[in-house]
């Protein structure tokens, strides 16, 4: 067990956990931030995605010790002052989610993508989102929502 300080969504937390604990379980179980979700624990699906330093990171395979003292953003931290982020607004306007379980990963992966590539081509969206899975197959609407968000953020 070790005391580890996490900076999540602008707040500082100190937790007592095994340093090897995947960040996902600390966020969900200790900080009650349930935006990131467990889908595989293997870095294969994207359900557990959080943003660290602008990168979409799979928190199920990131030891909490390697996430200390860096700014982490979860889905809960995406909106500002009660106003949805343009990506969230696009998801709402396109009515993207079916069950919605994967959509944390979809939105945060899209955020990292658009931050780096503000005006992505269709091929860049396909490639950038390729590893973030959805078993309700909302891909078609996600593709449209990413384009809508890109347009609005331009």
């Amino acid at each position, binding site marked *: 067990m070790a005391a580890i300080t996490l900076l999540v969504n602008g707040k500082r937390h100190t937790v007592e956990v095994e340093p090897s604990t995947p960040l996902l379980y600390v966020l969900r179980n200790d900080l009650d931030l349930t935006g990131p979700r467990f889908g595989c624990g293997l870095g*294969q699906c994207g359900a557990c995605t959080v943003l660290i330093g602008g990168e979409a990171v799979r928190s199920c395979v990131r030891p909490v010790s390697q996430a200390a003292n860096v700014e982490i953003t979860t889905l809960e931290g995406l909106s500002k002052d009660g106003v949805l982020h343009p990506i969230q607004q696009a998801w709402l306007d396109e009515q993207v989610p079916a*069950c919605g379980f994967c*959509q944390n990963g979809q939105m945060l992966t899209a955020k990292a993508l658009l931050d780096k590539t503000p005006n992505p081509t269709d091929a860049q969206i396909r490639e950038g989102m390729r590893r973030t899975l959805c078993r309700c197959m909302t891909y*078609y*609407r996600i593709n449209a929502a990413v384009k809508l968000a890109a347009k609005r953020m331009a």
Partner: protein
Amino acid sequence: MAPHSGDVENARLRAFGASARRVARRDFLRASGLMVASVAAISVEGVEAFLQRPAAAGPYPDPDFLQLDSWIVIRPDNTATFFVGKTDLGQGTGTAFRQIMADELDIDFAKTSCVMGSTDVTVDQGGSGGSDALQTDGYPMRRVAAEARRVLLEMASTHFGVPVTALAVSDGVVSTKTGDSADRGITYGELIGGKKFNVTLTGKNTDTTTGRAPLKAVQEMKNVGKSPRRDDIPAKVDGTQRWAVDMKVPGMLHARNVRPPMVGATLKAIDESSVKAVPGFVKVVSKGNYVAVVCEREEQAIRAARELKVEWTPPATKPFPPSEDLFTYMRATAPSSSSAPTVTGDVDTAILGAATTLQAQYDIPFQGHTAFGPAHALADPSNGQLTIYSNDMKSYGLRNGVARFLNIPREMVRVVWMQGPQAYGRTAAEDAGFEAAFLAHELQRPVRLQWSRQEETAWDTKGPAYAISMRGALDAQGQVVALDFDARAADHNHVGYNEHDTVLIAQLTGQRKAEPARGRASFPSDKYAIPARRLRGSVVPLPLAWETPVRMGNLRDPDGPQVTFASESFIDELAAAAKADPVAFRLGLLERGTGDDAGHKRVRSIACLKAAAQKFGWTPRPAPGPVPTADVVTGRGVAYSYRSETVAVEMVEVEVNRRTGRVWVKRIVCAHDCGLVINPEALTRTLEGGLLHSVSRALYEEARFDDTKMLSVDWVSSPTLTHADVPESIEIVQVNGDPNPNRPDLPHYGAGETVCKPMLAAVANAVFDATGVRMRRLPFTPARVLAALKA
């Protein structure tokens, strides 16, 4: 309460507000006395609705479906909450329920909310399944809402001292038709708000529940046919949604299962000392071949499950043939059961005398549900009762099953349905709910159980494999004179539902039933007129029936995609042999028929086929197209089917890369007729998802195994459609209501599953059109396509 539909937990959270979240989540359910006190103190609008429900502390008798108050609560502020026994798997059915019930009640849609699927507060409508939410359960919902309106109008009649016929109602405000402008009317809330209806309904069950009021004509329904946004989406986008995976209660432990490493193995010994040193370790629980570890924290349970030393005795015989040899096995093995054939005319004679005969075999492997999130549940035995928080689509079945499995009164058990990762039939047999309940019952502490990815992909229920043989014959004019369909389904021991003696833990602990379910082989659904036709089906067993990960369950129209793949591929083969255009060929088969069933499925099939062809811009020519020379070639395909009363015609354009073997479904057109559409936008999205799910099944999905264990265990070994495969366009044509779309009683049929059926064949037919090569074995992986191109 804010306009919303969903589970009772999130409804309570909304009612309490964010500040009371902890109270609501942690304490509300645990002590009803405390609950009432805090509710009164918080005094949040809408809470009284819940106070009319049975005490949360239990026991939990069934809500009485013959009491109007079980279905509808109206508050003084003229808002209404509907309580229905269904679950919403992400199709927006909750929003649709609000639309139809608001219409029948005549209340502002924005002032309604809907609570679903909690066995103690919503009547047992069975949860979800079979795409029947609107087709079956929509009617009692409409009838009870109409009855509430009738009762309210009678109250208003007394209030105004005029007959009901002299009253008008709009958006929950009743006024006299002759009233002067000073008569602002009286609201439903003023008439009954906060009080009970105390009206008894009639009917044998929730399907037939009714009052005395008639239903409205479709034309009078204001919300139906409009597309208010799905009310469950905002919380899924802003991160405030609480899912079943998120539930926590004080003192909760975390559990993980430990599965046998080879299928059919018997537990020999557990070395508990191997995990004693794991921090937070609580207990190893085992019974028969079921093993689980329980720890204080989740990551500890994961570690303990990994490190626990268990000795297993391998089975004496192999549980199944390797998946590569499955179809040879299925064709060579004696069936365990056969269904009565459906026969028209004399197929054998017709084939003998035909100008052209054709035969082909189609192989459809086991395909898993492979839910995006593995199975999970939290069971809380506090207060001597048992509450299970679960994403089970059939929460009522889980409640009954758990009570029987643990041999406790069902009044002790409550299942709170909450949102979860959807799997389109996986939770019809909700293993994790039973396992969590078992562990919580053993330990007398709340236990949250989470399956691993590997466990889910390997051990979830599977859509049955099919080996289908088809024969057909054409006369000299290219007309189909005979069609012979013979299916073998590996559906022995189908475990579709939450049965206390077939769920996985019942099998592993030795509490299973003696005889496996027979299973079934189903037949294709089409309205083709073929003079001689025979449909035969039988079920073949695998060597191991129990304690195996190849367990058959209900995967999104359980057999439709398999049998339609064969039947609609073969119709295309016949069309090609007749050198006919595939659309014209099908139209001919439909138009040759006469007469129709009550649902007009034949004429509706014709209408859908024409509508799809028009949207697609289908120009008639036989398949295949010109002999391909380029690396990337395109083709088009069509397929059609119906399910229950709903018809779907699908057309696709595919690109086939002849160098890499990759198939890309570039364009999809789907013409769909499910009768009256409640919410066109939500329907469109549901269909888009269903279509792509079947594209995924066509191109990627197969549960693979060797002769001792599963090989498909994660997203690398069990790939699925990804963003890279998104079609350029998906166009849905809603062809609703033929032959008389304007009839006042146009039914709302089930939607959702029908579109899953034709796609596999549509893709195969398009690959044939592009390459001249016929794919008869699913899925069409690049390796398989390359091999077929070379053959």
